């Protein structure tokens, strides 16, 4: 039936010439241009915002360096820009920031990487199904909560654990570093775990087939193969630690910029200085106002250097599989 029908239809269709379809557009497609323009605008907006941030940082920074020499700023060891005869040596708060970053990484790298290895290589599927999302939630925990936790729990706890240290006041830069470390553990763990999971299973099998045990497979094959992702995780975490404000403001305090390197006492970091000083009653154009932006620019530069360095490192260590 159908076959004969079809057979009869097709010659008719052939006879009844189908009109050739025109190749020119029926009407100009304005919609397409609008969409394209809108998308371009969005892209331009994000670039524009970034440029605006840099410019807004730069203008007051330039103003600042008209009053204070770059050398004095970068090498001075006294930091008291708020006073009438202010000192503008940024080193104390740079050291404060670096202290926090180093301690945070010392805490977070081992914990984060060991968790990542556990999750990627050892954890039973069910355990992983619980812990991995939990880590991702922890990444989004408000830093003010961690700050309070640091101030009211970690700080007294630290005094009990290390009674021989020179605890004074309510603040401690060391505890602030630990608290920031806790903040970035989930980030390091989760990103490194992704990197290790994406190592092809064939590499693991190859190592197991040589009589390697699980630890050797994890540490000597999977870990090095994932190193570029792991370095990326650490750098991301480092940028986050450099820029962290709320925790250090709460736990390390905003005052007492000093070069004492005493972990048991409060100290100021660059972000804490900015966060503590930039209140509504600062007049635009004053030296203090300009100082905030100078510190901001330096912070921006430091993060930039870390990121550039990381990109090179990742390229160098990249163990490409495939």
């Amino acid at each position, binding site marked *: 039936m159908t076959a004969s029908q079809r057979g009869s239809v097709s010659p008719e269709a052939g006879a009844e010439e189908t009109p050739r379809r025109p190749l020119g557009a029926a009407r100009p497609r304005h919609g397409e241009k609008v969409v394209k323009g809108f998308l371009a605008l969005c892209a331009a907006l994000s670039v524009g915002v970034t440029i605006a941030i840099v410019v807004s940082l730069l203008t007051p920074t330039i103003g600042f360096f008209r009053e204070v020499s770059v050398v004095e700023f970068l090498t001075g060891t006294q930091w008291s820009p708020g006073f009438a005869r202010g000192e503008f040596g940024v080193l104390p708060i740079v050291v404060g920031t670096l202290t926090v970053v180093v301690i945070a990484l010392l805490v977070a790298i081992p914990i984060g990487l060991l968790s990542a290895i556990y999750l990627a290589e050892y954890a039973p599927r069910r355990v992983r199904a619980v812990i991995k999302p939990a880590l991702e939630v922890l990444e989004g925990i408000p830093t003010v909560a961690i700050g309070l936790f640091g101030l009211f729990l970690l700080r007294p706890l630290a005094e009990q654990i290390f009674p021989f240290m020179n605890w004074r006041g309510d603040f401690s830069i060391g505890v602030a570093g630990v608290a920031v470390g806790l903040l970035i553990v989930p980030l390091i763990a989760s990103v490194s775990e992704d990197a290790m999971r994406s190592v092809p299973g*064939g*590499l*693991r*099998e190859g190592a197991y*087939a040589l*009589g*390697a045990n699980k630890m050797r497979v994890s540490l000597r094959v999977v870990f090095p193969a994932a190193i570029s992702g792991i370095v990326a995780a650490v750098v991301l975490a480092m940028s986050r630690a450099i820029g962290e404000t709320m925790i250090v403001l709460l736990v390390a305090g905003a005052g007492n910029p000093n070069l004492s390197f005493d972990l048991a006492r409060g100290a100021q970091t660059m972000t804490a200085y900015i966060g503590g000083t930039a209140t509504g009653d600062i007049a635009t154009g004053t030296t203090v106002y300009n100082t905030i932006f100078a510190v901001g620019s330096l912070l921006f530069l430091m993060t930039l250097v870390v990121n550039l360095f990381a990109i090179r490192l990742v390229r160098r260590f990249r*163990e490409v599989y495939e």
Partner: protein
Amino acid sequence: MTTDKDAPISGEMPRNEGTDATAPADPGPDADGGPGTGGAAGTENLDSPLHLRPAELRGGGEVEHRDKVFELRKVSVSYGSHRAVGDVSMDVFQRNITALIGPSGCGKSTLLRCLNRMNDLVPSARVDGEVIYHGENLYGPRVDPVQVRKVIGMVFQKPNPFPKSIYDNVAFGPRTMGIKQNMDDIVEEALRGAALWDEVKDKLTSNGLSLSGGQQQRLCIARAIAVKPEVVLMDEPCSALDPIATLKIEDLIRQLKDEYTIVIVTHNMQQAARVSDMTAFFSVRTSEGKRTGELVEYDDTEKIFSTPADRRTEDYISGRFG
């Protein structure tokens, strides 16, 4: 960790020599002569392009090559409730090349991975029946799969060199076994054994992944033999390679037979005919929508390709299989 030299897996070997169901009836010295035990059916098959010269070592009086390395007794492997391959009974002989052939999905890889307990890495996999290795049950309670894999190495379908230097790739296995001395010699010997030394001796520090596919696979073979295993399992080692690289690997496999017992999975029948001494043909049985692989026929390669006993084997090797 145990560092004892005799791996616990290779204990005494009560060997079961002498006649056995699968032993060839006719030790005809000249394989090209062909007819062997075959009757009328054999003559037909001689015209087939698939009837190629089986490997050497057909020579009479070779009792040694009939020493059993593996005895499989009613081995079945299931993934969860799916039985992938069932009731396989066959013996694998020392310094023989044993080929496993059959359509895709019939469980060749699955069975092969039982022989060095790689299936232990798949949580859902379960092995029933007995795999006897030199008289010892490979799945016995005191057998450590990690030790097993040091004695029974494996080469995979897709070349999987580690993203490390050529040297470190080869040294990985020996280092896993705790060997520290004479590493240079070990690496050289393994690379020579894998017919790769001349091509890489000047670039041992370059990444294993910089080699061509065929070289990578020979690197993987070098890596496997660097630990001096007794058996090398190969899962379609040439399927990702071009014809020239394939021929090189086949040459190499034939050479390796002098020192190693080789079990090779292939779905290239000419390859099985070219390199192997014994061939096992597997097929899939479908019942109630479940596909289970089964051993159809196991015999001398010459016999399988000239006068197969089973109709399904004949159909498969003559290309009549769908």
